[in-house]
């Protein structure tokens, strides 16, 4: 029923590009919900004239914010703050791991 092998693995990184519609589908959110997160600065579209384009990393950011809101009862602003702090902690932990090994 389901194919055994994937042929379509796509990395969602800075260089991958998603339209608003694609981002909504990937995150299972409505356009209004995604726009609200845009207003909060969680994600930023590239704006070279024409329609909005988002980078692949937005998927992870949006999904994390949604989980934080749902599970911890924080609002957009609180989740956005937590997201930024979490990303900083990740970088610091990676650095600590490197420095502690020596």
């Amino acid at each position, binding site marked *: 029923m389901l194919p055994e*092998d*994937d042929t379509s693995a796509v*990395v969602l990184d800075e*260089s991958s590009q998603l339209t608003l519609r694609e981002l909504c589908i990937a995150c299972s959110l409505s356009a209004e919900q995604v726009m609200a997160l845009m207003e909060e600065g969680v994600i930023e579209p590239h704006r070279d004239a024409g329609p909005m384009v988002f980078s692949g990393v937005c998927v992870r950011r949006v999904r994390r914010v949604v*989980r934080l809101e749902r*599970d911890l009862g924080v609002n957009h602003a609180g989740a956005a703050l937590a997201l930024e702090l979490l990303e900083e902690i990740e*970088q610091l932990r990676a*650095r600590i791991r*490197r420095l502690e090994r020596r």
Partner: protein
Amino acid sequence: MEYRDYYQILGVERSAAQDEIKRAYRKLARKYHPDVSKEEDAENRFKEVNEAYEVLKDPEKRAAYDQLGSNWNSGQDFQPPPDWDQGFEFHGGGYTEADPEAFSDFFESLFGRGGFSQHGFHRGGRQFHAQGQHTYARIAIDIEDSYAGSKRQITLKHSELGADGRPVIKERKLNVTIPKGVTEGQQIRLAGQGEPGMGQGKAGDLFLEIVFNRHPRYSVEGKTVYLDLPVAPWEAALGGKVPVQTPDGKVNLTLPANSKSGSKLRLKGRGLPAKEPGDLYVVVDIVTPPATTDAERAAYTAFRDAFHFDPRTASGRT
């Protein structure tokens, strides 16, 4: 099936007020949230806490649960008494917005019969189409796998509705090609590999989040890779060619004379591959051999006599 003490899981008394339960839940949710916590067992604890709250936050479910009595201990073998929930009316099905797959058999047996409302069945003969849910998993790879790209077989668990309308857990194996240059925290999307859709709805996608296995000598920050290079004191002082095993293969590195411990040598573009690849930093780590034989001790003595070196003054290590 094991009895679960939801009050114990949340750390509250059976007589706790609703706001007290909420407070306890929020505290534990912040502590064990998989996005926030770095504790090993965070995900399981978080599921447990969520399940407990799912029952205790809802006065209807809580009353039904309380009715089982307080004589049960966590982990004790449990079968729900027949018609145990008679006289209780559950609104909105057994589940709410929480992830139903995370719940235990114990929860299923008590509250699961409301059905998978959000999965949508055929109702009243009307055809129902819905896209399958996206699914998410983590995949741990070695740093070298990102350099070369790799193939992995992963086993995914998902629930499907069985013939009797109750969910059954099924396993599925999938061969995944990990593309070159993935970094920690990055997601890979496999279109159509999530849950199957209903009716003519498309299947959801599978998202895999990359984590790197820890390596004794390599570490990664973004696309930048660091590598510890142990060198002998004479190699550091005299400089010269040193063979280095990098994640990308062997290179012969020219070590400058008088390299200091902790100094970094940059190999441009030899970090994780990408359109703009990261850099590889070789970090010099001077290792001094212990003096155990007379000859070795004599060598150190000669060493000492040749230098007027006090590492504790400014002219020493900086």
